[in-house]
């Protein structure tokens, strides 16, 4: 029975990067009995897995869904983080980045590439209800985040899917939702002028915020208002008269929500006559309002207040919950100087001093956590066949964390702050998800999990050359590097010793009880730690 009682009240502060200062009084918390403080927890390196320096690890964890040893190799092959990042920011030009996973996985669910009428038809024939298209899109979003080669594009695309939010909750927009998501992704690293126009005039948005039924006989203000408040200039920067004119400009984009799902522009529905919103005015004489809509949306996209909205939101996603006004102003300036191009803003953000200081300051959202956990554990999600397949079941795993991907029930998009993602149940549910995936317990089908043995870097008994056992403290260091991309700490070592009742110097073989029974609990120590739950 190893003497692994908690010890070392002289807490080694460096080990915990949790986005805030350590609480001094919390030394009480460990429940330490000084008399038992016998074991010392000293890190022993085992550097078989290459890890990035702190700055690169930070940047990778912000601009991808989680560092992995494979990513480390890619970055090295590209010649370092900067060149790798630049290529990721322009994945279709120059050093083209593969998009194989995106392409192939889009065929995993029929509804992803099917036309609205096909989805409707299948629903009518009772093969798959049309609203399942939203669930399928959520599933696709999850597996893309886990496996896409274009990590940066996926991360920025998700950001804009939240910004121009059309909830995936089985509303009428479901039938158009996959196409909407693809469209956003295709513009995510382009210009916001194009992205905004594409999103606002898309039938998914039209159906969701009622513009699809807004006509000159009865103008519906829903989209006209949220366009100003959420998507561009922000609350407090427009009047009720602006809302009315905004909604008037947008009339004409019609969708037949009564079964044909026909998408059309109806000049007869468009409100004509002079309009004025903020500094935009137009005689709006033409029956076809598509041109005035384009000019209006481009005007809004280029508005300095919009620049601030986008800059602040990007800074909250990628830097910290409370970015400084100086950072926001700087990013807004870059945005305007590049005529609303998004990639230069992301690039500017990544090199800003405030970004560099923000290591570990973001709490991973629920969906981020499950994706990062799959990546850390090197789980492979395979093409699904049947409801029980991992690619389908993973969604329910995500749901238990509080939020199905892209399903936030309000038009303002899922929050991305520590306060929103630190509730009691979020924490407990994350712990449950971590251990379920670490043990490969659920989901099981069409998923490839690593074996417990594969995490222990030793040879098989009887084989020469490789050692057949490893010290526990070295194994902990190895796992910390593999899962977290950084060496172990005394605190992690202590937690590992406590979780699986091993001594630091204990020799672990492939037949040790740890490998046979307790590996999920050991892997859980790293996944449950602030290093994994923050980024």
């Amino acid at each position, binding site marked *: 029975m190893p003497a692994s009682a908690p010890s070392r009240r002289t*807490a080694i502060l460096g080990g915990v990067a949790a986005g805030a200062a350590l609480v001094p009084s919390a030394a009480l918390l460990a*429940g330490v009995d000084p008399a038992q403080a016998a074991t010392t927890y000293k890190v022993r390196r085992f550097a078989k897995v290459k890890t990035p320096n702190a700055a690169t690890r930070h940047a990778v964890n912000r601009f991808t869904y989680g560092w992995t040893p494979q990513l480390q190799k890619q970055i090295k092959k590209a010649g370092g983080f900067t060149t790798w990042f630049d290529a990721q920011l322009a994945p279709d030009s120059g050093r083209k980045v593969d998009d194989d996973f995106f392409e192939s996985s889009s065929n995993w669910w029929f509804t992803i590439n099917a036309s609205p009428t096909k989805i409707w038809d299948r629903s009518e024939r009772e093969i798959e209800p049309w609203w399942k298209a939203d669930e399928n899109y959520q599933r696709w979003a999850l597996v893309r985040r886990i496996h896409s080669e274009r990590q940066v594009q996926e991360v920025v695309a998700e950001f804009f899917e939240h910004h121009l939010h059309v909830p995936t909750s089985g509303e009428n927009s479901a039938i158009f939702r996959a196409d909407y998501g693809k469209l956003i992704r295709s513009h995510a690293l382009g210009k916001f002028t194009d992205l905004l126009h594409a999103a606002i005039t898309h039938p998914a948005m039209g159906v969701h915020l009622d513009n699809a*039924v807004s006509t000159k006989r009865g103008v519906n203000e829903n989209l006209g208002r949220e366009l100003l408040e959420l998507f561009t200039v922000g609350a407090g920067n427009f009047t009720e008269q602006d809302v009315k004119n905004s909604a008037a400009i947008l009339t004409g984009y019609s969708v037949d929500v009564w079964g044909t799902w026909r998408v059309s522009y109806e000049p007869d529905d468009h409100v004509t006559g002079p309009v004025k919103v903020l500094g935009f005015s137009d005689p709006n004489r033409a029956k076809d309002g598509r041109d005035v809509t384009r000019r209006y949306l481009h005007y809004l996209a280029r508005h300095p207040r919009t620049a601030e909205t986008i800059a602040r939101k990007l800074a909250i996603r990628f830097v910290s919950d409370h970015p400084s006004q100086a950072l926001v102003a700087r990013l807004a300036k870059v945005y305007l100087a590049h005529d609303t191009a998004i990639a230069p803003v992301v690039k500017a953000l990544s090199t800003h001093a405030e970004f560099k200081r923000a290591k570990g300051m973001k709490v991973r959202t629920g969906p981020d956590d499950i994706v990062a956990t799959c990546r850390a554990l090197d789980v492979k999600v395979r093409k699904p066949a049947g409801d029980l397949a991992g690619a389908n079941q993973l969604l329910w795993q995500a749901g238990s964390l509080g939020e199905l991907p892209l399903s936030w*029930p*309000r038009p303002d998009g899922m929050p991305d702050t520590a306060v*929103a993602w630190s509730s009691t149940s979020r924490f407990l549910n994350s*712990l449950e998800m971590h251990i379920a995936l670490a043990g490969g317990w659920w989901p099981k089908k069409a998923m490839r999990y690593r074996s417990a043995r594969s995490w222990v870097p030793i040879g098989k008994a009887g084989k020469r050359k490789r050692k057949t056992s490893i010290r526990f403290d070295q194994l902990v260091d190895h796992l910390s590097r593999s899962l977290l991309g950084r060496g172990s700490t005394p605190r992690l070592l202590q*937690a590992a010793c406590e979780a699986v009742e091993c001594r630091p110097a204990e020799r672990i073989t492939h037949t040790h009880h740890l490998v046979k029974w307790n590996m999920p609990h050991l892997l859980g120590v790293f996944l449950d730690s602030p290093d994994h739950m923050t980024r």
Partner: protein
Amino acid sequence: MTSPADHTRASLTTPASCCPEYAGLSRRGFLRAGALGAVTLTSTAVFGSAHLQVAHAATQKAGSVLVVLSLRGAVDGMSLVVPHGDPAYYKARPGIAVASDVLLAKDGFFGLHPNLAPLLPMWRAGRMAAVHATGLPTPNRSHFSAMEEVEDADPGSSARVGWLNRLIGRDAYAHPLRATQIGQTIPPTSLLGPRDVMAFGEVDQVTLAGGEGELRARRRRSLQTVWGGVGGPLGDGARAAMLAVDDFDPVRRTAEQPAHGARYPRGDLGKALAAAARTIRGDVGAEVITVDHGDWDHHADLGTLEWGRMQEMTTELGEALAAFFTDLGSLGDKVTVVALSEFGRRTKENANYGLDHGHGNVMFLLGAGVKGGYFGTWTPLTNTVDGDLLVTTDYRSVLAEVVSTRFDVSTATVFPGFTPERVGAILR
């Protein structure tokens, strides 16, 4: 301004199951002996300029329970509680108005949506009140900033502290189970603040996964090592979770089946209220429970009594609240439900059988301490494109009446700088 009638009166005066079951707090005045030895669980948080350190005590009984049901998306209060006595209501809503002859609990001016029928027994027993024409003092038509404003309820301050966090912060007893969001794991603005709170989706989720007995104790110890000293919201959340997970046990041990034959409607609201009833039955000191329900943002397809989202969601609302009080049985004598929304909707319908963003709205009060009937002061509606129901009662006056009567707290603590006006919907 006050025609046709000043509704500051109760039309039905049957006393509610009144009586001061609020008997003060029976504080077991000892600090926690945690699973890891006799230590006091503490957490530190900075909100605005306040730097607080909180010692968590053992759970105390809740003498009164306040359930705040937020009807998200801005419900149309004039469909729920119909001003049938105002002719402009029918002129402005030729397609979606609720006909006078089908209204329930009608008086000379108001009547309830027929799909609220499951609540009629409570109404008749004088345990349900509707306060009309309430809201923020000035219109705010943004869902998101209106929600913040309503739930922060402290317009002078930039600190992000919600009114319910101030309510549970009124004395020294601090425990995350004292205030809980149920149904959604992201806590609303009203709960945020220096006191730790809880949020869970389902009762069974409040558990530490990964084995029982020795295995669980080890994981516990290991987590404590890692999280014990971590600051920030996630550190607070982690420690509150580890504390709550033990003290929540009585709730997990309650029967999953609702009591007294209560039948909740399908859907998230029924599920959340069923979990709320179990939480109250578990008697773990849950004094404040928040539940979100929506989307009530009916710009289109609000509809009629035959079709549309209003009739469907109103049915669910009525059935769920009725089932909740049935489920609670005599425990309901200490539970007060307040239902409110961030703002109301326009008087005039739009071309899509819907309503755009307006201002004044109705608030419902049900259960303990409530003086039944219709309340509020009505200003005649105007049938114009922009016509709003004017707010004559600050929503805080209604809330202040509830908290100051049901809890041992001064109004000024919960609603700083606000002088409430008497509404009369709570028994004193």
